[in-house]
């Protein structure tokens, strides 16, 4: 089986889905000729032509808004927003439209749309290129949010997202794009949405994470009997898997890349505090980025969770 990095795995998922289903079209800034600024869409224009791989004008609201129109008409658009920091102009389309059309039309119209966008710290990019604002989209009923942590899961989750009848925000860590390779089967396989996976079993503490932070977490737990959960789909998230693990370990650390206040880690924590409280031995700790404006690269390393900070939180909860 070929070992692929995440760029290649996502590219493969797009290619195979486009081959399989001619309703799948890709659009966004620089996705055609240039193959995307991270080369995710490389080769697609040559293979599928400019009607299916569309370089759009520079305008995120219409990229998403037009995708909604296409989706309602019957296509399955996969829109790329060049960086998550530039998705904000499209928040209105996502929140007021993509998420609501099924409900507002009582199922008469649906929006089978995927919005892919790179997120996160780690590549020392310019300002606004390192956002991790998934929490915002997790607060929009009607929207699904998926964040893969490795090439294999990226491909399988993207295929599931494309086939899902509802709008999915698919967030790709720029740091993970080329960080690791993994065996990725060619051809069709899916990883189901709304299911978390237990990456490693353990009995002392449950650590919940997703995306790039999963890898920082795995670094941090080397000497600990930790159960590590990759949430994969954030909204709707797999409560069952989370609570089961918590009931077993009684200790929880949640690691996410966003600034702590209002991050999705807070939702996980609150859900546990609501539904599995009686099994807890101590506080639920969140390891998150600082509650500050995302700094420029010189201070980036001070901002986001490190393995050290995760370890510290683990030893803290292990006191109970």
């Amino acid at each position, binding site marked *: 089986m070929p070992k692929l990095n995440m760029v290649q795995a996502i590219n493969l998922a797009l290619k195979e889905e486009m081959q399989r289903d001619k309703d799948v*079209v890709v659009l966004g800034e620089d996705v055609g000729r240039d193959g995307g600024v991270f080369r995710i869409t490389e080769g697609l224009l040559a293979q599928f032509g400019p*009607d*299916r791989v*569309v370089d*759009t*004008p520079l*305008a995120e*609201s*219409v990229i*998403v*808004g*037009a*995708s*909604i*129109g*296409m*989706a*309602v*008409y*019957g*296509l399955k*658009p996969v829109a790329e927003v060049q960086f998550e920091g530039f998705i904000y*102009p499209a928040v*209105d*389309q996502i929140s*007021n*439209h993509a998420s609501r*059309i*099924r*409900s*507002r*039309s*009582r*199922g*008469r*119209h*649906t929006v089978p749309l995927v919005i892919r966008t790179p997120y996160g710290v780690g590549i020392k990019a310019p300002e606004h290129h390192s956002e991790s604002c998934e929490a915002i989209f997790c607060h929009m*009923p*009607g929207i*699904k949010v998926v964040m893969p942590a490795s090439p294999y899961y990226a491909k399988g989750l993207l295929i599931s997202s494309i086939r*899902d*009848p*509802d709008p999915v925000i698919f967030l790709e860590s720029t740091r993970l794009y080329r960080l690791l390779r993994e065996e990725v089967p060619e051809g069709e396989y899916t990883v189901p949405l*709304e299911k978390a996976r237990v990456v490693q079993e353990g009995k002392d503490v449950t650590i919940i994470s997703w995306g790039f932070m999963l890898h920082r977490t795995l670094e941090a737990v080397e000497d600990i009997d930790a159960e590590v959960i990759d949430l994969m789909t954030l909204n*709707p998230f*797999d*409560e*069952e898997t989370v609570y089961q693990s918590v009931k077993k370990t009684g200790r929880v650390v949640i690691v996410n890349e966003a600034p702590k206040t209002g991050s999705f880690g807070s939702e996980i924590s609150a859900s546990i505090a609501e539904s599995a409280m009686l099994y807890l031995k101590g506080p639920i700790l969140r390891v998150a980025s600082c509650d500050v404006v995302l700094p420029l690269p010189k201070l980036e390393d001070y901002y986001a969770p490190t393995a050290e900070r995760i370890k510290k939180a683990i030893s803290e909860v292990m006191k109970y």
Partner: protein
Amino acid sequence: MPEKILDSFTVKRLDILDEKGNADEALMPSISNEDIRRFYEMMLLARTFDQRALNLQREGRIGTYASIFGQEASQIGSALALERTDWVFPSFRENGVYIALGHPPYKILQYWGGDERGLVTEKGLNIFPVCIPVATHVPHAAGAAMAVKYRGDEAAVVAYFGDGGTSEGDFHEGLNFAGTFRLPAVFICQNNQWAISVPRERQTAAGTIAQKAIAYGIEGIQVDGNDIFAVYKATRQALERAKKGKGPTLIECFTYRMSDHTTADDASRYRTKEEVDLWKSRDPLLRLKLFMEKKDLWTEEYQKEAEAKARSAVDEAEKKAESVERPDPRDMFNYTYGKLTQRQQQELKDF
């Protein structure tokens, strides 16, 4: 002016039927007498419906309602130019469009009564749900037009919005997108001179809305929006261009909002009675009636019959709207996603 001229543009205006009911025969589109009566009866139905809806709101039987009074020609004239395969993206003020396209009037009341099911069009009638956030549906129309083109379908896409809507970023992004890809789209701006309390001149320094087409390299035209023939003709032409691959058109229907913005508004706070009276004389129904009278298509008797027909359709709509059973609260769960989430199942259990 010593600089070179790179390009030049004009903004055109189409008027066919004047306030006295005289039509410019050279410009007149070919419409059968039967169709002329259909135009008139449809405007009458729309107006009758609208007045009833205003009443129902006053009586607390529906919620906030946005009247189309004064804009009947813009709505009916354009809607009747469409074909069944075309897709329509309305704003919140297209009750006349809905009616003209055959969406049952009782459903319109149901929607304004606070029930999503009123938005559900029958299969084959492609009206996107009402769009309340101003101009945000313009990108949807552009996208649907791109899908039409991609599929090679024999169709065009029409979006309706107001003069105020042209200030929004989504108007711009949508028209530019449609222009760039020469999409089969028609953008109909009902310039009714007001965006709630803000007059057209305070919305933009551009002298016309139509000239905004120049920014997108697309066709643009202003028509007398109270002249159903002009609206109909401009829409037909724009649809033809769209379907022939000649790209989108922006049509400015120059009209007037005779009512308050919605039933939650009091227009007397910000505009004069004189202005409203001026526009009364430009009424779209009146002038078509005068035209028909001259052509022997209108009699008192005909009027009475037409009114009775409209009234009974609206009576029926009202009755039907009020007899619809209340929506099932579970529907809000059932239609948020394709299937219930773990959490929703729990919430439903506790419901």
